[in-house]
């Protein structure tokens, strides 16, 4: 598939728009359907498309397997860490009200932070699973 000019150019054009759409789904999740989980999956879809057209090795140079594995853990830590920060600020675990000067803004920041944690974890996990499935056959 690597010789197909239309596919190569098409994938290259589409990928940044898919990434932008993922970010839109994430940051607009407060107002419209979507959120961290869906955004993470859409973000992975951009890289899956690139793997299908350009091959696993080329994409892994941009997005190394160790990086996506770290992402899977960092997202969970970001989520749990948000809870610890709110505890240190004197509220309950994951009680976002204290994150800003007034509770409503605090809730906004808190939701954005934990959704970012979900996004990073889902992105890292899906990419890790995909790398393992796609890379296993060719090493033998």
């Amino acid at each position, binding site marked *: 598939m690597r010789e197909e000019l239309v596919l190569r150019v098409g994938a290259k054009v589409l990928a940044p728009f898919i990434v932008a759409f993922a970010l839109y789904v994430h940051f607009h999740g407060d107002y419209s*359907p979507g959120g961290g989980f869906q955004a993470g999956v859409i973000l992975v879809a951009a890289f899956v498309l690139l793997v299908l057209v350009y091959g696993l090795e080329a994409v892994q140079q941009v997005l190394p397997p160790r990086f996506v594995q770290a992402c899977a853990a960092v997202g969970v830590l970001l989520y749990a860490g948000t809870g610890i920060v709110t505890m240190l600020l004197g509220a309950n675990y994951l009680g976002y009200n204290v994150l800003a000067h007034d509770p409503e803004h605090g809730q906004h920041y808190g939701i954005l932070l934990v959704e970012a944690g979900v996004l990073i974890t889902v992105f890292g996990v899906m990419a890790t699973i995909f790398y393992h499935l796609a890379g296993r056959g060719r090493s033998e």
Partner: protein
Amino acid sequence: METATDIVLLALLAATAVGLVRIRNLFAVVMLAGIYSLLSAGLFTVLDAVDVAFTEAAVGAGISTVLFLGALALVGHREKKPTRTGRMQVLPLAVVLITGAALVYGTMDLPPFGDAANPVHHRVADHYLEETYHEIGVPNVVTAVLASYRGYDTMGETTVVFAAAVGVMLLLGGGARRRRGGAAPASESESE
């Protein structure tokens, strides 16, 4: 109109499910599974559960299909013929029929579908719908419930997703990397 859409979607779902069971070509099965997810997403949209529909379309129809195709590349795309054919399988049929009958019997105790007086709409749902805008300041109630009111649950789910990656890495990763030790240069030259 909505009833007609429901009937069409459910009929297509049933037809896809029968196709999934009967077809032996696993490539076609994976495609049908994606179609099944997309039809479910349509059904969720009819039920006004757009967040769920979004997830189903992205995960079920999108990423799952790609992951299944990746697995098919490893195991081949023909399903083996069943070892015992032609004979009526009495025991499995009985198990399926009895379980199905028990499930149908169970639905008789459920409250009527879509009734506003159902208990599920009157515990915390009222509070979420009325107070979200004052307490959280977010128009999308689903996001508010997911990330704030039910933040613990979502954290647990994120951890489960993380555990899935750890499981896949343990099952597929370790052995392959050890074996790859000598073969890595070969796979690199193959890509040139």
